[in-house]
């Protein structure tokens, strides 16, 4: 790198910044120390404790958490709000609009769209949550390590991520899912994790690289903190924000990806009921029967909305700089 960057560093960050950062750092360090002590009196002073206190007062968090809770309950017990049968088909009513007892109308097969939308929550939410969780864990772990240790680790992990990145989603999906014949959601989840982790890893690596340069990290290192401690206590909380943002949006795209895979015949398979399957079928009928698309797509949007809002709130609460 040209040398001119070296003096720049001093100029930009030499004045004013250090003190505030040091304070923030001190706060975090203290929180960490007390947290380890584990006495109830100290709990609210830990980072996650603070976050939780913030979250409880945040209306955005409460609303989104309620929506998600509702969705999860529906996903587990769909019969609570839908007493129909998602498989019952009356082909004679194919694509008809709403009718008494069938508020959302019928799909191409003459099935009740309302019932299918309710029952579709289970598969779609399972895919979304599990795939995001898997990809985020794997991606941030690998990316974080790569960014923190640099050198060989970085090179190796980044290159492996590159290899996975190079594979077109469609090719991967068709191959992976044609080899696996299981009709459950797990192959789809596994495939999305496999394909999704490099993106998270890159983001995580990028933010760890940035966070690592911060003065409070240097300070902690100078104070003799171990690598693990540095990474978990000092860097992770500051680097986790972009990962959460990307992961929450990714959750939405993963649910959509499941739909795209279904569209190509490689996604979830019947008799599983999912929003993805229904959206992909409905999309070509958009002119004749937009209601077939509207309801499952609407449910998908609400789910995504809830998760992004939740992610946003958590991110704000976690970021010591925004407090």
């Amino acid at each position, binding site marked *: *790198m*040209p040398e001119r*960057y*070296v003096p720049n*560093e001093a100029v*930009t960050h030499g*004045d*004013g*910044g250090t*003190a*505030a950062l040091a304070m923030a750092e001190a706060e975090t360090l203290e929180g960490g120390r007390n947290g380890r002590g584990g006495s109830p009196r100290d709990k609210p002073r830990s980072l996650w404790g603070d976050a939780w206190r913030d979250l409880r007062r945040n209306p955005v968090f409460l609303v989104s958490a309620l929506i998600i809770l509702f969705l999860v309950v529906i996903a587990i017990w769909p019969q609570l709000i839908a007493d129909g049968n998602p498989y019952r088909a009356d082909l004679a009513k194919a694509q008809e609009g709403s009718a008494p007892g069938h508020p959302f109308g019928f799909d191409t097969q003459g099935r009740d769209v309302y019932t299918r939308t309710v029952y579709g929550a289970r598969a779609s939410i399972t895919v979304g949550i599990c795939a995001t969780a898997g990809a985020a864990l794997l991606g941030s772990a690998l990316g974080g390590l790569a960014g923190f240790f640099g050198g060989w680790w970085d*090179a190796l992990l*980044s*290159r*492996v991520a*590159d*290899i996975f*990145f*190079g*594979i*077109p*989603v*469609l*090719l991967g999906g068709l*191959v992976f899912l*044609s*080899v696996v014949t299981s009709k459950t959601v797990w192959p789809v989840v596994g495939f999305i994790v496999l394909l999704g982790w490099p*993106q998270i890893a*890159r983001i995580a690596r*990028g*933010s760890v*690289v*940035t966070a690592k*340069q911060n003065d409070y990290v240097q300070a902690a290192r100078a104070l003799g903190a171990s690598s693990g401690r540095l990474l978990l206590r000092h860097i992770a909380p500051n680097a986790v*924000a*972009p990962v959460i*943002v*990307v992961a929450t*949006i990714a959750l*939405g795209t993963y*649910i*959509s990806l499941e*739909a*795209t895979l279904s*569209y190509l015949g490689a996604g979830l398979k019947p008799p599983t009921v999912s929003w*993805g399957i229904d959206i*992909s079928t409905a*999309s070509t009928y*958009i002119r004749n029967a937009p209601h077939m698309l509207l309801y499952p*797509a609407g449910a*998908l*949007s609400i*789910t*995504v*909305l809830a998760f*992004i809002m939740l992610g946003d709130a958590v*991110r704000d609460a976690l*970021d010591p*700089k*925004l407090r």
Partner: protein
Amino acid sequence: MGRYVIRRLLQMIPVFIGSTFLIFFMVYALGDPVAAMFGDRAPDPATAARIREELLLDQPLWKQYLHYMGQIFRGDFGTAFNGQPVTELMGTAFPVTLRLTLVAIVIEIIVGVTLGVLSGLRRGRALDTSVLVFTLVVVSIPTFVSGYVLQFLLGVKWGWVKPTVSTDAYLDELLLPGVVLALVSLAYVTRLTRTSLAENARADYVRTAVAKGLPRRRVVTRHLLRNSLIPVVTFIGTDIGSLMGGAIVTERIFNIHGVGFQLYQGILRQNSPTVVGFVTVLVLVFLFANLVVDLLYAVLDPRIRYA
């Protein structure tokens, strides 16, 4: 810096080998392409056996792979099943997709960063909320749905644009497909910009800059934006590769004869020379984009140095 670049270039070699082998393996796993050449009819065993022999399909995987790599180093990417050299296919497909990707990236940057900056500077206000809602709606609609809907509305119902792209794929024709392709990433760019801007807005160096009496405009552009764009640049860099290879659905809907189109056909026909060749080039594009992103890091954030 020079040494860093050379090291990165050297690292590309194992990635190149790894990904070509992975792709080769995947196409191989899809199975024997010969049966499909005969349509709905059982292949004549003698002819099928000869075709397999000519395509080296009767050899073990590693031998096929070595043979293929040997060809590549001689600049020969093999021949598609319809008798056309893959290099010729690439020559027509890549420029088209490159244009499409450019259009999409430009849209992403202009619209995404602008929206992100606007909402980042006005966190919690009405504008921020509407941008949030907009990105949510966009991200929750699968590409094939937004593609079909926009194509139908703009191309057929209102007749504002041509619904599909001609073989020449002029830039103006690529506008609508570019928007569709950019939509999902647009949400990422907007949200990333917003988040990182809001974060940096409270950073001390910004406070200092304001305190020094610098005009707001200068603070935002020189100090705030420059530092906030790092995650955005990372994202766009990684996005180039996925946009080029991930345009399969968009290219299919708008009948663009680009990389996604050829890949799709190649996959459906299990034509390994086409698929492996195209993906190999995509991987290279992706690797270079990554390298450029990492170098840009240093330009944008002076705290980062590469030795």
